[in-house]
């Protein structure tokens, strides 16, 4: 008989194991896996957006135009999805749109989720006046028609840049996740381990970020996925209404151009691809969110 000595696991080994376990669970959810597959396809598109402009100047999404073509043409070998009203290649615009969808979606999601986590943690942990002040603010924002406010701001400032749009989207998106995180913190705060941390002299800052925050992290990831999809859809709607940033090519902007120049009913090769892309990419992010939800909340898993 031999005695096996278990070496204590290092912090990183534990973390690696945890990630592996989570990934295993995630793979079992199937929906999550479908979501990741969709994501990868669009990531490839986003990275491929750099290629067409290198091949030929006419493939530059915003400024390039085919010297032999004026206006809208149906798909051809040279332009797999045809050209738009200015003779610009629709396929390279679609790739460029994928790039911007990721940039807009992820940056808006990061902003809003960071905001909702910080507010949720502070509000739930401290309670009292701080809590009610933050919660009233959140509720007021939830009661405002955010999209309409952005339209008004866009109109007053005569068009706003993409980063302002991202910030405005996050400002109106954070309260929803924040409420759930706050509720979670409220219950975590009462757990014995928090009490023992406090007794052993941990500061509030340390308790919040070291002992409570890691426990709301899975929830954060869930809202992150949903926020990305939401941001992509909101930006698309804004651009479609002509309130987007005219200096970037987003999928919503492509549909706006198609609608504005009156090609909605005559050029399906122009109308369909950007809309389908918005749908699929946001579906991908929603599915990842649902997959995460099933890991966090085992009741939702298949029996």
């Amino acid at each position, binding site marked *: 008989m031999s005695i096996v000595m278990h070496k204590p696991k290092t912090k990183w080994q534990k973390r690696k194991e945890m990630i592996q376990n989570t990934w295993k669970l995630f793979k079992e959810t199937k929906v999550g896996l479908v979501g990741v597959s969709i994501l990868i396809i669009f990531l490839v598109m986003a990275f491929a957006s750099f290629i067409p402009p290198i091949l030929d100047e006419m493939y530059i999404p915003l400024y390039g135009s085919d010297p032999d073509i004026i206006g809208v043409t149906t798909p051809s070998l040279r332009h797999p999805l045809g050209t738009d009203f200015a003779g610009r290649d629709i396929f390279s615009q679609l790739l460029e749109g994928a790039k911007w969808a990721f940039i807009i979606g992820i940056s808006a999601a990061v902003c809003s989720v960071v905001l909702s986590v910080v507010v949720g943690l502070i509000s739930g942990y401290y309670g009292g006046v701080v809590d009610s002040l933050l919660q009233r603010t959140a509720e*007021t924002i*939830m*009661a*405002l*028609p*955010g*999209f*309409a*406010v952005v*339209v*008004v*701001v*866009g*109109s*007053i*400032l*005569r068009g706003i840049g993409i980063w302002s749009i991202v910030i405005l989207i996050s400002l109106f998106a954070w309260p929803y996740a924040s409420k759930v995180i706050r509720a979670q913190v409220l219950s975590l705060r009462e757990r014995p381990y928090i009490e023992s941390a406090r007794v052993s002299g941990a500061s509030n800052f340390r308790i919040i970020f070291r002992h409570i925050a890691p426990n709301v992290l899975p929830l954060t990831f869930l809202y992150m996925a949903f926020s990305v*999809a939401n941001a992509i*859809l909101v930006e*698309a*709607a804004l651009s*479609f*209404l*002509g309130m987007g940033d005219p200096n970037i090519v987003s999928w*919503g902007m492509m*549909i706006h151009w198609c*609608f504005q120049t009156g090609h*909605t*009913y005559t050029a*399906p090769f122009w*109308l*369909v691809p950007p*809309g389908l892309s*918005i*749908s*699929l990419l*946001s*579906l991908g992010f*929603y*599915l990842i969110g*649902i997959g995460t939800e099933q890991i966090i*909340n085992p*009741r*939702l898993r*298949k*029996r």
Partner: protein
Amino acid sequence: MPMLKYVAKRSIEIVITLFIIATLTFALFRLMPSDPAGLILDPRSTPAETARIRELWGLDKSTAEQYLVFLRNMVRGEFGTSFFSNDDVYDIIKERLPATLLLFTTMILLSFSVGVYVGRLIAWKRGSKLEYGSTVVGMLLYSMPFFWIALLAIWIFSYKMGLFPLGGMKSPEVWDYAAHSGVFAKALDIGHHLILPLAVGVVTFFPGVMLMMKTVMIETLGEDYITTARAKGLSERRVRDEAASTVMLPMVTDLTLSLVWSFSGSIIIESVFSWPGLGAKFLEAAVNYDYPVVQGAFVIMGAVLLVAILVTDILYAYLDPRIRY
């Protein structure tokens, strides 16, 4: 009486929110880079003319004074006149609001009925093909930008198949030219125009309700009291009803949130379908820098929404026996 007290408390909160909305509107328009008088005046107008317009609009007063005047006017329902048509903003809103209310009340009611019913059903038939199928379709519809669905629907059903009008709410041949059109013919005409925007709205809106209903329902079915109900030997139907009654609470919260969303939704859907409602007017005014109309529409829509939210809140308190304010 506690209910009355609750309603009073919520009403005060609503007035405060409305005040915040109004203040926000006022503040937003002070972000404007240029002088509003310069917007509609001929660039060649003399300084004296400009000064007269500025005085007429109260632009020569201090910001604080303008704010007080603004609040007084809002309370009185005086929103000024449109920069473009010279019509009274109040009249414009009065003319436009019914169309929006017609479209959106039917849409929200229909979406919620369908969503709650189907969601309940598929939660019950968990693991079946029906559940799988409706979840996939629901997710897909949920992820689609609905202006795009609207464009596709107009293209297929109106442009290609000619089943519905391309947009608008009334046909001129029924409303303006034929003096003998009866009430019935007029109602039928509006109904004909209503179907497509309503269908697009419901199709994009009910999946969210359905998926939410499914999730809460599944969670509830795992609760102890459902096991108890089953153990008591209640019929499946009774068990389902028992579960559904508690599930309605989060659904009412969802309804409140979707009411807020509906103003944003109306901007998009009415613009695509040229539906003569407040949302379309709001966008048109925003694009044309017709600020009095934007301001008025914003505040009125906010007021309508807040009252609707109050109603759902009362409904919530009524539904939940645990909550007695």
